């Protein structure tokens, strides 16, 4: 439970102060969530996708730290005008680079942002009943990590609840 210094980059600070593409998109083609309030990290992406499978517009909402807000913001900027096939290839490492580097304890923010994006892409094709060749069956690293973080937070939250019941041995 130690704390670490968080020397955020200038880019993260800039996007934290002035996030791009912020807010719910009412006419979104698809949206997806990653994380949950128990983790203290939660992102919703809204994508407007045209019939060429190109992202016309992306917006986000984020309940999370400065790194979470910045990585979400950069994802929305990056995918705009991209074909979904190319958007799928964005890795959390490239997002981390784009925000001027993430402190190690904040890698999961980049991972969560990419995880949410990929969930949105999957949701889109599921909705259309299509299965492009490039879309893998198996969950990718980022999607698995997002899932793991969500599960872990649930387990910890549950553990805390049972711990309230009485005195216990460590």
């Amino acid at each position, binding site marked *: 439970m130690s704390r670490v210094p968080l020397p955020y980059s200038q880019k993260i600070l800039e996007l934290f102060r002035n996030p791009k593409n912020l807010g719910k998109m009412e006419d979104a083609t698809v949206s997806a969530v990653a994380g949950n309030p128990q983790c*203290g990290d939660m992102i919703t992406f809204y994508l407007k996708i045209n019939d060429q499978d190109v992202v016309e517009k992306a917006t986000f909402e984020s309940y999370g730290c400065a790194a*979470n807000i910045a990585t979400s913001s950069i994802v929305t900027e990056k995918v705009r005008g991209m074909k979904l096939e190319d958007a799928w290839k964005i890795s959390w490492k490239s997002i981390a680079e784009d925000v001027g580097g993430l402190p190690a304890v904040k890698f999961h923010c980049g991972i969560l942002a990419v995880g949410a994006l990929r969930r949105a892409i999957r949701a889109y094709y599921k909705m259309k009943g299509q299965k492009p060749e490039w879309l893998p069956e198996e969950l990718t690293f980022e999607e698995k990590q997002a899932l793991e973080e969500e599960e872990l937070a649930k387990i*910890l939250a549950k553990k805390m609840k049972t711990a309230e019941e*009485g005195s216990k041995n460590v």
Partner: protein
Amino acid sequence: MVENVRELLKAHEGLKHEVYLDIENSSFVPADVLEAMLPYFNQRAYGNPTLTHKPGWEAFEAIMESAQKIAGYLGCKNLEEVNFTPGETEANNLALLGTTLQMRSKGKKIVISEIEPLSVVHVAEMLAKNGFSVVKIPVNNEGFINLEKLKESVDRETVLASFSTVNHEIGTIQPIKEITRIVKDKNPNALVHTDASDAYGKIPFNVQETGVDMATISSYKILGPRGVGALYVREGVNIERILEGQIGTQKLWPGVENTPLIVGFAKASKLMFEKFEENVRHMKKLRNMLIEGIMGKIPDVRLNGPKGEKRAPDNVNISFLRCEGEALTIELSLNGVYVSSGSACTRRILQPSHVLTAIGRRFEEAHGSILMKVTRLHTEEDIKYVLEVLPKAVERLRGITGSTVVE
């Protein structure tokens, strides 16, 4: 990485007002305390207090006078009961490890609460790995320990009970006298330690009256310098040293005494205690102004810890729903208000503050918590400024959260 920090600092240029409220984690040293310390670095008493020369004897005198003052404020029988350490962490380690080392043949059980500071919790966990049984007493939703459970838990095997007098995060004032009596009734040989770092100088606290065997106090929490604290150990109570080396004036802590810091600690104590009533009244006024201002101006907030007289006069801990704590500390910092958060985002792992979860706060409530402590030197203008900045900060961040978190 330091380049990044330089940029972060640059982003703070041109602040019109600054208010430091993160007394939990470090503090500023007021000019009068600093002034009292300065001669001891280079003009006098820079010798080792155990050596036979003038600068050494000067140091001896300064350390004993400082111990005498602090012993007086604590209500000690004599100044030998005050053992200077490099801080609260070290004093708590000394109390727990020193006692268990000394008494390990008499029993292997210690009792603490769920909401102790990490310098107690983590040491207890270390002892648990080394053959001790550790019982953590639960607390209610205001942070008061369950006295029935305490009664049930203390037995003949118990060598130590350690409970903070005032909780460091939520300001709960425990009935430490009653706690001590319960422990001693069940087992007169068990020692009682209290971390009184958040009590010393803030609520009436007297080692004789409470009956504790050991008490930790910290310098920076009363606006003294960092790097010094003390462990009161009642005369006649024996605990072992946890570090070995050259023993000087401090029989429980080896190494060369840091005279200027000890002098600063005593000076800060004097400033706190010579106007104790006035200082406490001032802190309470600012604390109430801050709590009432926040609760009145900002919707969806929760006060963590008890209200009124059961709460430490300096402590404000509030959860802002739909607003993540780390983001809020940064937003406030950019506006000149310096606070800390119980959010997991400020830590290495996903778990938020163990104190807040122990009082039944949900994770999402703990993540949005902010801890602030007022001091005798803060002003009404400071609090007004915080109340001007904070609602805007929360509103902006809730705007980013949007509909993501539905309560």
